[in-house]
C-alpha cells in the first residue's frame, strides 16, 4: 500500500486505471494515454515527412533539368506548374515549406513528440505523463498546426516563400513577393500553434522525468534516451518562447503597420505607411536564439535513441555513461550562446564574431566525446545488426562527416566564402537532417514492437537502410564541392552563370540519387503500415533489453503495468556483465544481496 502511494506521487492516478470504459473517440482520437499520443505524433509526422520529401523531389527535378518540361507538374500543382514548368515563385515556396516541415513537423514534433511520449513514462516507470490532459492538448495543437500549414499550400499567392528562416522584409511586408501574403500569415499562425504544442509537451516531459520516476530510478540510473529527452524539453522550453516573441513582433509589422524589423521602407512599398527605425537584424537575432538550440532539439533525441540502440545491440554497457550525460548538458548550455554563427556576415563586430566562433568550436568537444563513446561501445561488441542498429550506426557516420564540415562553417573568416552556398545545404542536411532522420528511423525499428505489438520486416528494413544510406551520401556529399565553387542555395536555376555549367551533370546525379532515396522511403512506408496489421507478433522483450519499457506487457494497458510499478535496482546498461549467466540484466532485477529499495533505505536510516 505504501509503495503504491510513493509511486503514484499523489496525482490522482490509481491502479484501477485500465478498467474504465473506453469509447473509440477516447481511445483513438482524444486519447490521454501517452502510448496512443506517441503513435498519433508518429503517424502525423510520417505523413508530414512524406509531403516534405515529395516537395524535395519536385525541386530536385527542377534543379537537375531546368529546361525540361514535366507535364505532371501541371497535374499536381495546377497553375504553379503551367505547361510542365515549375513557377520560380513556387520553387521558393517549396523549399520554404520543405524546410519548415522537416525541421519543425518531422524532426521536432515527429521525433520528440513520438519518442518522448512513448518512452518517458515507460522508461522512468510511471503510469502516464504528469498531466495526460495537457499531453493530449499538445498533440491536438500540433495537429491543428499541421492542418494550417498544409492549408497554406492552397491559398492565393501560394504558401510562405521567404525560406524557413522567414527573414524580414520578405516576411514582414505582405506585398513583397507572392508568398508574403496570406501564405506567410498562415505560416505564422501554424508556428504559433506549434509553439503552444511544444511548450505543453515540454512542461509535461520535464515534470514527468523529475517528479515521477519509480522508486530506485536515480537520475544516474536513467537511460540516456531519457536524459536526451529531458534536456531537449528544457531547450525547447527556453528557446521556443523567444520565437513566439519574434513572431508576435512580425505579426504586428505585417498587419498593424509597426516597424520593429523594418529599417527604412518608403510608404508606397509598405502598405501606405512609412517604416523607419526598426532592424531586420533584430529578427535574425531572435530567430537564431531559437534556431540554434533547435538544431539540438532535433539532434539530442536522435543521439539518445542511438545510445540506447547501440548499447543494446552491441551487448555492451554504453561507454562513458556519465560522460554522455555531461556532454548532453554541455551541448545544451553551449547551444544557447552560439546563435551568432548563423549571422557572421550581417556586419557584426569582428570581436563578437570571434566569441561566437570560439563557442561554436567548443561544441565540437562534447560532440566528439559522444562520437568516440559510440565507437568505443561498438568496439569488440557482440554486434546484433538489426535494422535499428544499422540506422544507429548510420547516424554516427553522418554525425562525423557532417560535424567535420561544421568546423569550417563555424569559422567566421571561412564563412564569408561559404555562407548561403550549397556547402551549408550539404552540412546541415548531413549533420542535422540525415543524422536525425536516421536516429528517428532507428527508434521506429527498435520500438515498433513496443508501439504496435508486432515486428517490422527485417529484409525490407535492410533494403531501406542501404538504399537510404547510400543515396543520402550521394545526394549531399557532392553538394560540398558545388558550395566551395560558390553555387548559391535557394536559386531556381543556375543556368545563367557560365562558371556553374560544370555542375550540370552533378545536379543530374544528385537528383537521380534523391529519387532513389525517395523510392526507398516507399519501402519503409509499406513495411510500416503493413507490419502494423500483419507483422510477426512481438515477444515482450524482443531485443533482450534492460530498460523498463520491456517489462510492460506487449498488449498496451492504460497505466502501463498490470500490477505494481517495477522498482529499479541498477543502471540500464548491465549487458554482458562478467559473472552473469545471461548477457543482460534488466533494471528491475535486484543486485545480489539487494532487497527492496524501500527496505534498504529504511535499514540505512535506522543505522
Amino acid at each position, binding site marked *: *500500500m*505504501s509503495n503504491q*502511494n*510513493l*509511486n503514484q*506521487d*499523489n*496525482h490522482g492516478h490509481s491502479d484501477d486505471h485500465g478498467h474504465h470504459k473506453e469509447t473509440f473517440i477516447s481511445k483513438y482520437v482524444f486519447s490521454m494515454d501517452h502510448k496512443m499520443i506517441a503513435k498519433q505524433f508518429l503517424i502525423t509526422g510520417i505523413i508530414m515527412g512524406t509531403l516534405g520529401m515529395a516537395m524535395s523531389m519536385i525541386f530536385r527535378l527542377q534543379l537537375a533539368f531546368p529546361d525540361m518540361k514535366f507535364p505532371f507538374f501541371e497535374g499536381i500543382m495546377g497553375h504553379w506548374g503551367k505547361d510542365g514548368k515549375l513557377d520560380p515563385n513556387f520553387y521558393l515556396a517549396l523549399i520554404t515549406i520543405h524546410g519548415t516541415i522537416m525541421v519543425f513537423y518531422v524532426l521536432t514534433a515527429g521525433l520528440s513528440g513520438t519518442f518522448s511520449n512513448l518512452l518517458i513514462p515507460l522508461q*522512468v*516507470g510511471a503510469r502516464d505523463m*504528469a*498531466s495526460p490532459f495537457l499531453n493530449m492538448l499538445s498533440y491536438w495543437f500540433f495537429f491543428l498546426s499541421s492542418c494550417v500549414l498544409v492549408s497554406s499550400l492552397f491559398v492565393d499567392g501560394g504558401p510562405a516563400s521567404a525560406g524557413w528562416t522567414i527573414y524580414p522584409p520578405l516576411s514582414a511586408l505582405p506585398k513583397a513577393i507572392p508568398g508574403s501574403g496570406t501564405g506567410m500569415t498562415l505560416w505564422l499562425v501554424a508556428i504559433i500553434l506549434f509553439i503552444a504544442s511544444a511548450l505543453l509537451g*515540454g*512542461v*509535461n516531459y*520535464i*515534470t*514527468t522525468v*523529475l*517528479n*515521477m*520516476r*519509480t*522508486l*530506485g*530510478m*536515480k537520475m544516474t*540510473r536513467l537511460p540516456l534516451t531519457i536524459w536526451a529527452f529531458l534536456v531537449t524539453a528544457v531547450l525547447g*522550453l*527556453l*528557446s*521556443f*518562447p*523567444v520565437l*513566439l*516573441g*519574434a513572431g*508576435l*513582433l512580425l505579426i*504586428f509589422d505585417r498587419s498593424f503597420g*509597426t*516597424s*520593429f524589423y523594418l529599417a527604412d521602407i518608403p510608404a508606397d512599398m509598405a502598405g501606405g505607411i512609412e*517604416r*523607419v*527605425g*526598426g*532592424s531586420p537584424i*533584430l529578427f535574425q*537575432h*531572435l530567430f537564431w*536564439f531559437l534556431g540554434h538550440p533547435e538544431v539540438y532539439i532535433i539532434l539530442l533525441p536522435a543521439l539518445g535513441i542511438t545510445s540506447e540502440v547501440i548499447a543494446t545491440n552491441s551487448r555492451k554497457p554504453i561507454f562513458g555513461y556519465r560522460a554522455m550525460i555531461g556532454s548532453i548538458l554541455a551541448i545544451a548550455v553551449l547551444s544557447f550562446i552560439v546563435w551568432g554563427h548563423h549571422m557572421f556576415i550581417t556586419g557584426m563586430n569582428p570581436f563578437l564574431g570571434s566569441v561566437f566562433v570560439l563557442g561554436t568550436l567548443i561544441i565540437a568537444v562534447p560532440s566528439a566525446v559522444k562520437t568516440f563513446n559510440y565507437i568505443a561501445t561498438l568496439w569488440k561488441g557482440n554486434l546484433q545488426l538489426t535494422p535499428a542498429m544499422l540506422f544507429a550506426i548510420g547516424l554516427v557516420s553522418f554525425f562525423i562527416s557532417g560535424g567535420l564540415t561544421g568546423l569550417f562553417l563555424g569559422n567566421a573568416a571561412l564563412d564569408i566564402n561559404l555562407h548561403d552556398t550549397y556547402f551549408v545545404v550539404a552540412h546541415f542536411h548531413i549533420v542535422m537532417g540525415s543524422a536525425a532522420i536516421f536516429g528517428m528511423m532507428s527508434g521506429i525499428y527498435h520500438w515498433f514492437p513496443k508501439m504496435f505489438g508486432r515486428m517490422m520486416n527485417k529484409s525490407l528494413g535492410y533494403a531501406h537502410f542501404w538504399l537510404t544510406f547510400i543515396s543520402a551520401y550521394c545526394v549531399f556529399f557532392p553538394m560540398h564541392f558545388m558550395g566551395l565553387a560558390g553555387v548559391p542555395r535557394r536559386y531556381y536555376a543556375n543556368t545563367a552563370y557560365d562558371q556553374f555549367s560544370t555542375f550540370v551533370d552533378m545536379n543530374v546525379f544528385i537528383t537521380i540519387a534523391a529519387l532513389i532515396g525517395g523510392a526507398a522511403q516507399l519501402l519503409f512506408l509499406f513495411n510500416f503500415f503493413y507490419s502494423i496489421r500483419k507483422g510477426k507478433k512481438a515477444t515482450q522483450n524482443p531485443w533482450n533489453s534492460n530498460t523498463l519499457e520491456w517489462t510492460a506487457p506487449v498488449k498496451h494497458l492504460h497505466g502501463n503495468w498490470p500490477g505494481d510499478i517495477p*522498482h*529499479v535496482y541498477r543502471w540500464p546498461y548491465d549487458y554482458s556483465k562478467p559473472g552473469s549467466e545471461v548477457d543482460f540484466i534488466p533494471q528491475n532485477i535486484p543486485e545480489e544481496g539487494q532487497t527492496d*529499495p*524501500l*527496505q534498504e*533505505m*529504511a535499514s540505512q*536510516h535506522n543505522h
Partner: protein
Amino acid sequence: MSETTTLTNVKTGTWGGGKSPFSISYGKLMMWIFLLSDAFTFSSLLVAYGFIRHSYASNLVTPWPSPDHVFNHFPFLHGVHLPLMFVSLMTFILIFSSVTMVLAVEAGHRMAKKEVGMYMFLTILGGIGFLSCQAWEWTQFITGTHEGRMLADGSIFHGANLQMNQYGPTPFGDLFFIVTGFHGFHVLSGVVINIIIYLNVLGGTYEKRGHYEMVEKVGLYWHFVDLVWVFVFTFYYLI
C-alpha cells in the same frame, strides 16, 4: 500497519525516485516551468526593446525621448509636471496586490476559507485597479499633448499610434504598446484566473479538497506577473 508507517516516513534520498525531488506536486512544478518559459517570452520583447533603443543612442535627429517628459501626467492635475508619478502609483497597486496574494496563500495553509476569500478579493481589486490605471495611461499616450509634433508637411501630429507618435521615433511608441500591452494581457489573464479561483474558494471546492494548492499556483503566476512589471518599469520607464 506499523511497518508501513515507518516505511513511508523513511528518508529515501532526494533524487532516488519514487517521489518528487522538490517535494512539490506535479502541478506546481509545471507552473514553475511554465513561468520560466514565459520569462523568456518577456525577455525576447525586452531584448528587442534594448536592441532598438541602443541603435538610437547616437541619433541626434530623432533621439529616444526621455520617459520623464512623456509620462508626466496625473489624473485631475492638468499642466502639472509629475514625472513617473502615475506609473509609480500603478506599480504600488500591483505590488500591493502581491502582498494580499501572499496573505491569501498563507490563510490557505491555515484552511481559513473566509480569509482566503477576502484576500483573493483584494488581489482581484488590485489587478483591476492596475488595469484601469493602464487604460488611463494608454489613453493619455494615444491622445497626446496639446503641443504635438510638427511634421515635415507643416501639420501637427498629436499622440501616438502604431505607425507614428509625437514623442520620438516610431519604435518608441511601438515598443510601448507591445511591451506594456503584452504585460497587461498577462495581468488580465491573471485577473480572470483569480476570479475563477475566488469563486471556487467561495464555493468551498478547496475546503472539500482539503488543501488550497490552487491558490498557491495562481499565486505563483500573480507574483511572476508583478515581477515582470518591475523589469518593464525599470527598463522602459526608469532608464
